[in-house]
């Protein structure tokens, strides 16, 4: 933990991980999606539209996973006053928002042929929309302050309070009747779907995780460098004035 608290060491770690993350992302996404598009069978009910699933479902998982990651690093930032954790949370938010957007739009594109409508206001869909708003609110709060250390802690409090929403999304399908189908992969009893569909799905999901780590390493580096540049600028102003 303390090794990571040092921004320089964290930067080195990120730089070391980056090529591997990129490799996992590219291989995972290409193989997973290729398999899904080219090899896996159609669904007897849904026809070829089932291939949307290979994008839709991993992005839904990533959307929720990244929000959880933000909540955890926010907690770390608040409890241990850990500057890097705060920046990890900040850098994750756009990635999470992007995956949420992909999930919403692909779901919508899937809904038209399956349910005959682009959008219904059911619990699962709406709670995903709310997650999207949570991401945007979180990003907006970061942007609303001039002082990054203030912004960081305010946003961390918001992320923790907002984490309450995650279980609501996850279990919305069980609590309210809905058009959307209930979980069949991430269940307590284990996966309930055919391996020909399951495998490409899982490989894509791993690729998406790699993508997340890859982008995270880029964005965190940008955040840390910006923060350090700010410090340099301000202390330079102070020195000149004192001198």
């Amino acid at each position, binding site marked *: 933990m303390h090794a990571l608290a040092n921004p320089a060491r964290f930067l080195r770690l990120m730089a070391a991980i980056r090529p591997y993350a990129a490799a996992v992302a590219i291989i995972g996404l290409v193989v997973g999606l290729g398999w899904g598009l080219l090899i896996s069978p159609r669904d007897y009910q849904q026809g070829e539209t089932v291939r949307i699933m290979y994008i839709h479902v991993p992005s839904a998982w990533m959307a929720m996973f990244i929000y959880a990651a933000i909540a955890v690093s926010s907690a770390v930032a608040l409890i241990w006053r850990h500057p890097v954790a705060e920046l990890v949370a900040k850098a994750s938010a756009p990635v999470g928002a992007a995956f949420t957007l992909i999930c919403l739009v692909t779901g919508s594109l899937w809904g038209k042929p399956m349910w005959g409508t682009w959008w219904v206001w059911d619990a699962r869909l709406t709670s995903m929309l709310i997650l999207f708003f949570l991401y945007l609110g979180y990003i907006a709060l970061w942007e609303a302050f001039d*002082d990054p250390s203030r912004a960081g802690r305010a946003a961390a409090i918001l992320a923790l309070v907002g984490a309450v929403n995650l279980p609501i999304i996850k279990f919305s399908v069980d609590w309210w009747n809905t058009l959307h189908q209930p979980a069949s992969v991430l269940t307590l009893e284990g996966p309930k779907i055919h391996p020909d569909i399951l495998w490409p799905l899982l490989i894509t999901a791993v690729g998406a995780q790699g993508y997340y780590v890859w982008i995270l390493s880029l964005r965190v580096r940008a955040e840390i460098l910006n923060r350090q540049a*700010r*410090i340099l600028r*301000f*202390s330079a*102003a*102070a020195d000149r004035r*004192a001198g």
Partner: protein
Amino acid sequence: MTLTVEKLACIRGERQLFCNLSFRLAAGEALLLRGPNGSGKSSLLRILAGFLKPARGGIAWDGAAADDDTEAYSERLHYLGHQDAVKPQLSAEDNLLFWARLLGHDVAEAQAKVEDALTSCGLTRQRRLPGRYLSAGQKRRLALARFLITPASLWLLDEPTNALDAAAVEWFGGVLQKHRESGGLVILASHVPVPLPGARVLDLPEGKLS
């Protein structure tokens, strides 16, 4: 009753205002903060009041670190910043009454204390006037009158005489004198002469004590 400040450093907006600031203040003593605009006087007062975390160093009261029991520490002090904290909608009297009640006095006690404080600061005629109609100096008097309601050992004052007229400055000098005679401590920042005889002077940003 001693306040010990050790090796204090302050960073604002990621730049260091002062560092290695140390001093000790005993009962009845006063410290006058001086320094050019932006040298960190207000920031130091806010650190001492517990609003701002110092970048390094610590504050202790009678040897006990302020961080250990922030509530007990903050109950020991009165703070007045650049703003008067006078609510424009409430009358002068109601403004003070609110603070008296907040500081834990019951109704009758609060009434009496406020009465005394208003008389002392010379606002008896304006007692029913809403805060928004008070002149700048009258608002400042009201803000200072708050200090008279409950005793506190440490007074932190940021340019308290701004907008006060000569008579009010004299009154305020008497108030400070009385506070120090009863063993209170005063830390005060100002650009203009203040009635604080025998005060030690701290020059910011160097932190030179004299």
